[in-house]
């Protein structure tokens, strides 16, 4: 399936065109799914059909959580990776400490911490349940992304920087035009791994009362005592979401694959 979608496009389309088309199509599928999924679900028997709207809302919250934390997490990951590979020791210490703490503690504890413990320390940081979940998920995925991106940065041969610098490119343009695009390509598979994990881990937001997909399922189950259809429905929706996400990430991977090495 992951390869098939790339072959549906006309044979004379280039790599970039196919990649763009796949991303656009997957984006449209995702939006349609979030917008219209309640309609076909309403045909299902109880307890799914009568709760179709509720499932659709939970799915939208799950996707929002994931999208926000994914974007923030990649930015945090880039910054932390740069910190950890910095020449300046204090930056390395800060980045290493952040990664050490986040990777060494459970995500559930982090979610609970941001929501319950942070306002105790700093009253101004009394965040809503949704915002708290976003913050905790972003920080969490950011730490894992940092290691993926750092590996990518270290994998770019030293000669690339030497060539760029010897052409007179500033350190900034050397990073933007030469190092980062190559590092990002190398980091992409582990980054996608992290974001797929993030989509599923966003379910932990239910612990602080965010009404996302898992929480919706739990609430309906508490009212109907029918775990089987409800958990099957939740799991199927997660599976569809990760499938769409994988399609998008495959398309991104192919966009960077100038050598045609991705099968």
């Amino acid at each position, binding site marked *: 399936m992951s390869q098939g979608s790339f072959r549906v496009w006309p044979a004379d389309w280039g790599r970039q065109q196919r990649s763009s088309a796949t991303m656009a199509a997957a984006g449209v599928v995702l939006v349609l799914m979030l917008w219209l999924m309640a309609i076909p679900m309403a045909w299902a028997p109880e307890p799914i059909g009568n709760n179709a709207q509720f499932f659709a809302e939970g799915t939208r919250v799950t996707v929002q959580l994931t999208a926000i934390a994914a974007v923030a997490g990649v930015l945090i990951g880039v910054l932390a990776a740069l910190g950890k590979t910095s020449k300046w020791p204090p930056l390395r210490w800060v980045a290493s400490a952040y990664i050490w703490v986040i990777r060494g503690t459970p995500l559930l504890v982090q979610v609970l911490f941001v929501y319950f413990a942070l306002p105790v320390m700093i009253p101004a940081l009394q965040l809503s349940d949704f915002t708290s979940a976003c913050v905790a998920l972003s920080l969490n995925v950011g730490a894992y992304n940092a290691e993926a991106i750092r590996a990518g940065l270290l994998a770019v*041969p030293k*000669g*690339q920087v*030497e*060539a*760029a*610098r*010897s*052409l*007179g*490119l*500033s*350190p900034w*343009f050397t990073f933007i*035009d*030469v190092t980062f*695009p*190559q590092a990002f*390509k190398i980091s992409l598979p582990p980054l996608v791994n992290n974001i797929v994990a993030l989509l599923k881990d966003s379910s932990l937001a239910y612990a602080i009362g965010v009404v996302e997909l898992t929480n919706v399922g739990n609430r309906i189950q508490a009212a109907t005592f029918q775990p089987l259809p409800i958990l099957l429905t939740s799991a199927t929706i997660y599976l569809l979401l990760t499938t769409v996400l994988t399609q998008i990430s495959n398309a991104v991977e192919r966009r*960077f694959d*100038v*050598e045609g090495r991705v099968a």
Partner: protein
Amino acid sequence: MNTTAAVNQGGPLITVDHVNKHFGPAHVLRDVCTHFNAGEVAVIIGASGSGKSTLLRTLNRLEKHDSGRIVVDGIEVCDDLKELDALRSEVGMVFQQFNLFPHLTVLENVTLAPRRVRKTPREQAEAKAMELLDRVGLKAHAHKHPFALSGGQQQRVAIARSLAMAPRVMLFDEPTSALDPEMVKEVLDVMKQLAATGMTMIVVTHEMGFAREVSDRVLFIDQGRVAQDAPPDEFFGAQRNERIRTFLGQIAN
């Protein structure tokens, strides 16, 4: 000497003055003093580990020298980023491993630095790049990515990429050492053609034919020192230095 040596009559284009360099306990450049004139083709030869590549790399600060002074076209080689970028845009460098940017097409490789550093508009940079690619015989490959080219073709793109910045001097760090034998010639031909235009070139190489035929000067580096600095006919003719004779004998075999 070449006829174009008159370009910079105020003095040499590059001056190397009492330069020392250590890698840990290894003293790789020992009090090196030399100079390179505008329009001159200088070839640096020497055994592996003698410090010849290091000397070349100190000229554009890819290696830091520990003491002494290096002045390139009036700019002292130092750590000031602005000065260093200005210096580097005047000094082209070609590497043993080509170091083309694999994620960019040939044309993008050649236009990147002019567009970013010189702020040349895209069309102008591309027109200039196509002209240079034509000169190195690769116009037809402009829209390919480096992986699709042979080693010799990649090295010729690397030369075009450096020339796109219109440098005052070109440094070559063993430009043919990573190439299959049949590709060495195509790269050397481009370099010969470049020398004929009066470009100032400093070439670290093991290609004695090139040194003999094209260079104005041959510098032999031995254990971090310039052991000999002579015109090629003198250097390859009645060589009196025992160590250089042995070296040349080993290379010839």
